């Protein structure tokens, strides 16, 4: 297992070579092969950093959040390439921000009745109801210098991929600091970021359709008497791809559009289709059960 490498190629640049995949799975390279690749490319300054493109379909909230954590570890140690993952939630779930109080934010009884999962994220931000949406997680080693070091700027850089992707549906979206993407003044995507072990994890949701009533049925609000009014306000401030397009749009069409958006916006990255290894799946399952599915972690604040 080899971590981050900095190689000097020729006399003109430093190259960050992250990831050396010893198992050589799904396009993994050895150090030697990589060095030869660079030599062959000669003075080509646009070294293609390879990212796994993962589509893990629909999983439980605990598994989804556990997998994000497993991938931070694996990428940090250099065992696997950085990745961009797209996924959904089954069953639907409420995730809360790292700093939120579960009891203050979520109506646990309603969630149980409706069969909705509850999970605390590693990232800050607010409570999110994950239902008809596409979710992504991007894991980027900071040593790659692929995104700005400043947190606000890095949010914007990564959201650029989503904004580009939404153009496939003729949507003109904008980034609004710190962590939102809006269309026509209404929020269509929320994003959250953490940095751990030298890896930046940004995950976020892109709304396929939105049901504000259903969402507020599961969340607690500071003042119950104001709930109705709050729902009206939120309905005016949130939108979705289907609402904007005025027709039904498949989950997979959104994923495909977003992949295309990220490929264009991160032109220096070579995204390759990949799947989770058995070990990764097993580690995520174990971590989901031990940490994210209940108890101490979810109720810690």
């Amino acid at each position, binding site marked *: 297992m080899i971590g981050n490498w900095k190689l000097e190629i020729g006399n003109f640049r430093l190259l960050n070579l992250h990831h050396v995949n010893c198992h050589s799975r799904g396009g993994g390279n050895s150090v030697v092969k990589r060095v030869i690749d660079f030599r062959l490319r000669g003075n080509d300054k646009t070294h293609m950093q390879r990212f796994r493109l993962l589509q893990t379909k629909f999983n439980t909230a605990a598994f989804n959040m556990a997998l994000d954590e497993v991938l931070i570890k694996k990428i940090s140690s250099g065992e696997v390439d950085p990745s961009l993952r797209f996924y959904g939630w089954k069953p639907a779930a409420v995730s809360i*921000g*790292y*700093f*939120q*109080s579960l009891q*203050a934010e979520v109506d646990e009884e309603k969630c149980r009745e409706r069969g909705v999962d509850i999970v605390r994220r*590693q*990232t*800050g*931000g*607010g*409570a999110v109801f994950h239902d008809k949406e596409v979710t992504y997680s991007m894991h980027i080693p900071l040593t790659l210098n692929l995104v700005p070091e400043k*947190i*606000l700027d890095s949010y914007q850089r990564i959201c650029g991929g989503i904004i580009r992707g939404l153009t496939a549906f003729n949507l003109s979206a904008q980034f609004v600091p*710190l*962590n939102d993407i809006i269309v026509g003044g209404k929020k269509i995507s929320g994003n*959250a*970021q*953490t*940095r*751990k072990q030298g890896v930046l994890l940004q995950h976020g949701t892109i709304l396929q359709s939105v049901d504000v009533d259903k969402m507020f049925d599961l969340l607690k609000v*500071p003042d119950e008497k104001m709930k109705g009014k709050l729902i009206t306000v939120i309905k005016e401030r949130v939108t979705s791809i289907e609402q904007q397009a005025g027709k039904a749009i498949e989950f997979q069409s959104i994923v495909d559009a977003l992949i295309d958006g990220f490929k264009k916006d991160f032109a220096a990255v070579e995204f390759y289709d990949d799947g989770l290894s058995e070990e990764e799946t097993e580690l995520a399952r174990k971590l989901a059960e031990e940490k994210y599915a209940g108890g101490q972690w979810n109720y810690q*604040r």
Partner: protein
Amino acid sequence: MRQAIYKVPEGKLLKVFLTAEEGKIKDVKITGDFFMYPEEKIVLLEEAVKGMELNEEALKEKLEKIIVQENLDLFGFDAGSIAKTMVMAG
């Protein structure tokens, strides 16, 4: 624990849970939909004010000191808004 909610102007929603005894903070949790890096260090802010009186200015000063010392990055709230919410909850 008593609770206070404060919407930071142009910022996020702070919810502070606080237990006070004889005007001093016994226990406190700073929660909300804000961002802070590194996340785990939020407990340092909570620990730092334990035993302190519910004086907004003194709390703000103490929190600011920890934020600088620990090189914390806060988004959507700051030492002043935490101190204010703590006093509201007290």
